[in-house]
């Protein structure tokens, strides 16, 4: 149970980082730098 929680938490955090810094960037980086990934 604990293992599951820790792993799920870690993955959720990673998803949150990707979302916050790349996908949801309203005014900035995210959008700019994202351009260079495709």
């Amino acid at each position: 149970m604990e293992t599951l929680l820790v792993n799920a938490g870690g993955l959720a955090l990673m998803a949150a980082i990707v979302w916050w810094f790349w996908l949801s960037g309203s005014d900035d980086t995210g959008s700019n730098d994202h351009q260079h990934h495709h």
Partner: protein
Amino acid sequence: MTDTPVLQTTLSISGASCQGCAKKIRNALEPLTGDTELVEVDLEQQTVALPEGVDAAEAARIVTETGYPAEPVEEDAEPASCCASGNKSENHTGDDSENRATAEESVPSSPEATTGDSGQVHLSVTGATCASCVNTIEKALMSVSGIRHAHMNLADNTATATGDADPEALVKAVESAGYGASVIEDEDEADDRKQEEDRKQYRTLLVKMAVSLGLGLGLMVWGMGFGTMMVTDANQGTWLGLGVLTLIVMAATGGHFYTGAWKAFRHHNANMDTLIALGTGTAWLYSIVVASIPGALPEMARHVYFEASAMIIGLINLGQALELRAKGKTSEAVRRLLDLRAKTARVIRNGEERDIPVEEVQKGDHIRVRPGEKLPVDGVIAEGSTRIDESMLTGEPMPVSKSEGEEVSAGTLNTHGSIVYEATRVGSETALAQIIRLVKKAQGSKPAIGRLADKISSVFVPTVMLIALVAALVWYNVGPEPAVVHMMVAATTVLIIACPCALGLATPMSVMVGVGKAAEYGALIRQGDALQTAGKLDLVILDKTGTITEGHPAVTRVHVSDSDEQRLLAIAAGLEQHSEHPLAEAILAKAREEDVQLEKVTGFEALNGKGVQGELDGEPVRLGNRKWLEQEGIDLGDLADAARAITEEAGTPLFLALGGKALGVIGVADAIKPDSKAAIRRLHDAGIRVMMVTGDVDGTARAIAKKAGIDDYRAEVLPEDKAEVVSEMRGKGFTVAMVGDGINDAPALAAADVGFAIGTGTDVAIESAGITLMRGSLHGVPDAIEISRATVKNIHQNLFGAFVYNTMGIPVAAGLLYPVWGILMSPILAGAAMSLSSVTVVSNANRLRLFRTSHRPERNDSNSDPKQQQERN
């Protein structure tokens, strides 16, 4: 182009690399244009064309906000090569060289020359520490409506925003991004204030470092020497207390990291502060959990890391303090220029002499300067003569003689006599003030390589956070016990070691030192790109007149066929007195020297590419090239042999005919500068081909090329065609530098990869070239190239160091070596390594200050001027 309305407004953009980007730009502009089809995105040219009537500034703002920095293209920013056709009426003979008058009336604007200082706001920024901060601040500034371009210089902590916006709004934007900002109104005052602030900040950082490092070391010594870093029932209370103390110290000495991280986070950004805050925060949180509820963790995992949090903050503060001090040293070049300014001036008003502060000097004031004093402003000597040491501005070591009517510059030193001069340029208009502005601007500019580093580091921090999480999960799932401890240590270490501060400093530090070094050698570099490109040059094209040669032609030979020399000169000078051409001046000077009474020539006319003509006693008199006179049916007889001799001596032959009869030929030559040959040899030594372009006939050009040791030449090139030669050579794959006098060569300078405007003294046309040489000597070109190569090498070393450090450091920190050798890096070591990397980068950039160019006296020609030989040795 499609069948849309006339496309008139154009934006220049950057960063659009694919059709997806183009689509995104078109969509973003739809509200403005009404239809995505009306927007043309040219990915190759990086331009966006919009239909007529669209507000360019607004469109640029929208495109910039979409993620592609955009600027409206000014209509007068057309490439300069288009503007060279405005010849003055007086083009001399065809074999005459440079038609110097050509472009004076229509000095073309180089692409860079269009934006002046207008609409720019300079901000002093505090709290920026790394490449990510630079991105955050630039983006914050760009988000202010009306701003077209923003640029942050990490090396001197200033930001420049171009556009139409309230300075206060810019300050607020930077502040809300998590940094401090203030508007720079008076540059001088700002410099003094910045120096004072830096000193204060340095002291503060040292105190903070001492406190946090003291606590960290104390905890470590206490824990290891007298007790244990493991929490037990007996010491739980003590550790709890120490945990709270650590938190207080962390907040007091590293508070700026946490506030910076939070503010960046709110703006969807992550920077160096983020990594430090997360790293030290994770260590403290874990430790406080252990200290509060040790029972929740397995016994082996009850280890505290309070000392790590405190020591990391201490080490990073130490690194920043050292960095601050080294940064101060790099701007020495500017400071030295600033120190050249005189504080007071002895002004003569109403017949009375008095000392007044230099700021109060006005144009037209008469100023007395005694021997040993610095000149306070620019002006023209009204009384007396002296020798002036201009080395601080031009790099020319020998004092220059100056007498009435000659120009003098602020910051130079009067070494000899007492003079009175009239102020012509004061305050920010003086050559010195302009040079200071230029050097500062160039020091802050970012070459392409630096922009790449910024781009990388803006995605770097969030990526590191992901890596830290992956490492933590791997340790948790497959690592040995105590897994929780290993997981925490690995994540903390990754976060701490990955700080991209070295990456952010790598380019600006080197550029700053390199530009300063070049200024020391009398080469003013206008942008970072010129600095970077100058290192890659493989072909240097030299203009002849004023570049290789002195630019002051003199009569070298007079050959008479049917007249006497006096009469020949009297007619030629009588004709040429109506002309202002350099060749005319040479003939007039010769006539004056020989004390010849000039003939009265009427009906003067200059014929482009042929020569000049007039009338003497009702007979036509012509002075010009051979082709023209032969076309007119004049038999030149044995003058052709004399002309050949003139050409072989690198001179230009001018034939004089009265009526239908040739009277003689005058040879006019422009002496090669004493050090041109040595400078050209230095270019060869650097592996660079050298080519000369001139309007001279082939024979003269060949003779000059041979004398100067030039590989290749193009003769009979009209001034307006020089740019074409440059483009042609670029087309052949050469990276081309054009060296010219900056006025009539402006189109060619702009067409080259790097344009060198060669000026004598302070009389420079700095706007037309990437690099301006303040000395008349060609040595400035190899000097600038050598400095550029050294700087680019330095940048590469720095970037390589920073990249290697980060790419090697992260896997080691994540524990990749653990399975093989059982090595897991401690977070404290990571903190020390991180600080060390910044200090290394800054120190390496400072190493450039010791750079010396290869200009040595023994390398000079036998005909070198002894003055030049003393230079810089």
